[in-house]
């Protein structure tokens, strides 16, 4: 079987459907012929990443019309957070995107810290970066496993979940639970890093590189994989920017853009890593970006383990941070602070901020408005998956049913984050 090179070159101009940028409408002439089959893909379908519903209109096997319907997992996180103190609200964002939980937690905590005007100590910064990168590997592994499964490469799923489980073990070691750790607190980390973590994490980082080679051996050279992914789901750089795409989707369209580089937060400016960029904007390039990012994240993890500074892990500000436990029994002032912080929470100065981080899925933003009280007035998350789904109609032109699955998979959406 001949290996296909890119069959369709990236197109000129724009392909965003008009008038509605997120809906692919059937050509009226085609509809009059009367052979259009309307199929509901989802909300219950094996490969819709949860509860995405795609109303697909098919002409034979060809996708001629497409509309994505979301909202089946809407849980009102933003409304709920308005009724919780900041301290408690930290447990919410990680449940929004349950695959890249640590990054979601980070963006909310960074927003609070920006309003409070506090800077966490270096150890907390490095540890946050380390955990976020582990979380990025975790998220990419989940993506790779499920996306490959959708294209029929079933074994990949198990290999990916082996490493995913190792990462979750590390989270359990550090934060106490495997997924929603609430380990990042305003001002730093909830607890000190346990000593055993360093060795375990180093052992993991050492094996991870070999594992990525295994994944590549299984897929990258595989003729069928190339046939299925090359030239499919094209998205030009201009269209990607106009549609607000970010993260791996944008980088696979040839835009060298990574918030960790262009707008360094935490201590990303002190570590050495590269931003993978691929020019074709097809499913294969998105896959390659994910693979390369896993390697780069492993590099960052190793550097972070090496460069982890000593010192306190949370700021020493009694108005924001719970006082040390041993003071509760000896210091009346600490006990009062403890009671005030737990019951009322800390007050965050009035203002509005928009903080963004590079989550595994792209630009994750948090718009936070405070009225000066202990509860957020308004929280709004800019969910990269939500935006990524807007691009389905543009990517989908001239696609078959099988491509539809590949394309939606390659956009890497998590429905919890889309619907919030």
């Amino acid at each position, binding site marked *: 079987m001949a290996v296909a090179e890119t069959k369709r070159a990236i197109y000129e101009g724009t392909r965003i459907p008009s008038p509605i940028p997120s809906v692919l409408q059937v050509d009226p002439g085609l509809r009059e012929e009367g052979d259009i089959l309307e199929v509901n893909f989802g909300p219950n*379908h094996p490969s819709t990443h949860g509860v995405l519903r795609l109303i697909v209109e098919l002409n034979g096997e060809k996708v001629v019309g497409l509309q994505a319907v979301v909202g089946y997992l809407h849980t009102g996180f933003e409304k709920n957070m308005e009724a919780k103190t900041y301290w408690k609200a930290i447990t919410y964002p990680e449940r929004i995107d349950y695959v890249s939980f640590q990054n979601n937690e980070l963006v909310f905590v960074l927003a609070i810290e920006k309003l409070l005007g506090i800077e966490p100590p270096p150890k907390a910064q490095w540890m946050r970066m380390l955990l976020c990168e582990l979380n990025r590997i975790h998220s990419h592994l989940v993506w790779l496993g499920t996306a490959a*499964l959708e294209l029929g*490469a079933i*074994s990949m799923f*198990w*290999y990916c979940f082996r490493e995913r489980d190792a990462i979750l073990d590390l989270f359990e070691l550090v934060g106490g639970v495997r997924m929603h750790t609430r380990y990042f607190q305003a001002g730093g980390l909830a607890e000190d890093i346990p000593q055993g973590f360093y060795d375990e994490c180093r052992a993991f980082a050492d094996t991870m590189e070999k594992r990525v080679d295994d994944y590549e051996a299984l897929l990258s050279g595989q003729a*069928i994989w190339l*046939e*299925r992914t090359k030239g499919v789901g094209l998205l030009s750089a201009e269209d990607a920017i106009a549609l607000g795409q970010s993260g791996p989707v944008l980088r696979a369209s040839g835009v060298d853009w990574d918030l960790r580089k262009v707008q360094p937060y935490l201590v990303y400016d002190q570590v050495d890593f590269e931003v993978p960029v691929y020019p074709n904007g097809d499913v294969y390039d998105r896959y390659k970006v994910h693979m390369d990012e896993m390697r780069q994240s492993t590099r960052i993890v190793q550097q972070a383990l090496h460069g982890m500074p000593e010192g306190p892990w949370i700021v020493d500000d009694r108005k924001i941070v719970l006082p040390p436990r041993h003071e509760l029994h000896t210091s009346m002032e600490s006990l009062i602070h403890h009671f005030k912080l737990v019951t009322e929470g800390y007050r965050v100065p009035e203002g509005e901020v928009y903080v963004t981080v590079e989550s595994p899925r792209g630009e994750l933003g948090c718009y936070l408005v405070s009225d000066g009280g202990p509860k957020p007035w308004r929280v709004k998350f800019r969910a990269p998956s939500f935006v990524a789904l807007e691009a389905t109609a543009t990517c989908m032109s001239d696609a078959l*049913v099988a491509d539809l699955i590949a394309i939606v998979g390659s956009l890497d959406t998590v429905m919890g984050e889309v619907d919030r």
Partner: protein
Amino acid sequence: MREPWWIDVIKAAVIVNIVMLSFAYATWLERKVLGRMQLRYGPNRAGPYGLLQPIADLVKLIRKESFSPTHAIDLLYFAAPVVAAFTALAAFSVIPFGGVWEIGGYEVSGRVADVSIGILLIFALGAIGIYAFLVGGWASDSKYSLLGSMRTAAQLVSYEVSLALSVLGVVIMAGSLSLVDIVERQQETLWYAAPQIVGLLVFFVAGVAETNRPPFDLPEAETELVAGYQTEYSGMRYGLFAMAEYVNMITLSGLAVTLFFGGWSGPVLPGPLWFVVKLALVVFVFMWLRATLPRLRYDQLMQVGWKVLLPVATLNAVVTAIVVVYA
């Protein structure tokens, strides 16, 4: 003394049961092989090494409610799995698994029926089986099933051609359409896997497609069409479809062993055992493919079938014919 008719009946009953049992254990083997390739144990709870798992599955499938969609076309909907299973089982009857033995004064041959056009019979039965998939999907009145049926029709029709042509080389070399003759001819010379390597490859690829096995499992591509033509089937009706698929795989592996790997022939061990060992190896390759390869796309499948396999198979037949005639 030639075989009386009642020996044939006994043999048929025994073989049908053995094939059904081997279907059950093919599912077990598949789960074990896939499990080990995917870092798992596979079934290991029901019985030692999970050996009772197929029985448990059978009990589960039989006890499960077999519901049907309201608008399904009843007769066709119910008949389709039966036809599929029947043709699959019937096709195995012409595959020889042993030589001829003397038992109690009777000559008992290691095949249910020695048909002089065995290969053609297998293909003919396979073609009828296609109708079952096609009709079953259409009759269940579901869009996914319909799409699955369409894919089945297109895929099986295109690969049937390559499959038949790939065998032509063997037929020319053996000079017979009877499977027994072909095996015996291989015993005299050498396994046709060597001279007919191209034919073998085409046969194998087309065979994988013909049996809807990954990476050619488009008609039931779970992540695209939910389960294709069998979406609306449940309980033992689904079980019959699954059985048809696995029996087809076993039959095809048996055919591959017969045509290319010398059938039951082999040193020391008795013929049927050799046959089973070779069969298991071919079946293993089927499972290995499933563990490793992603699924093809519909148009690529058509391209592979018509633009690669068909010309290669034709060329192979022509070259073989020229060599046989002039050498």
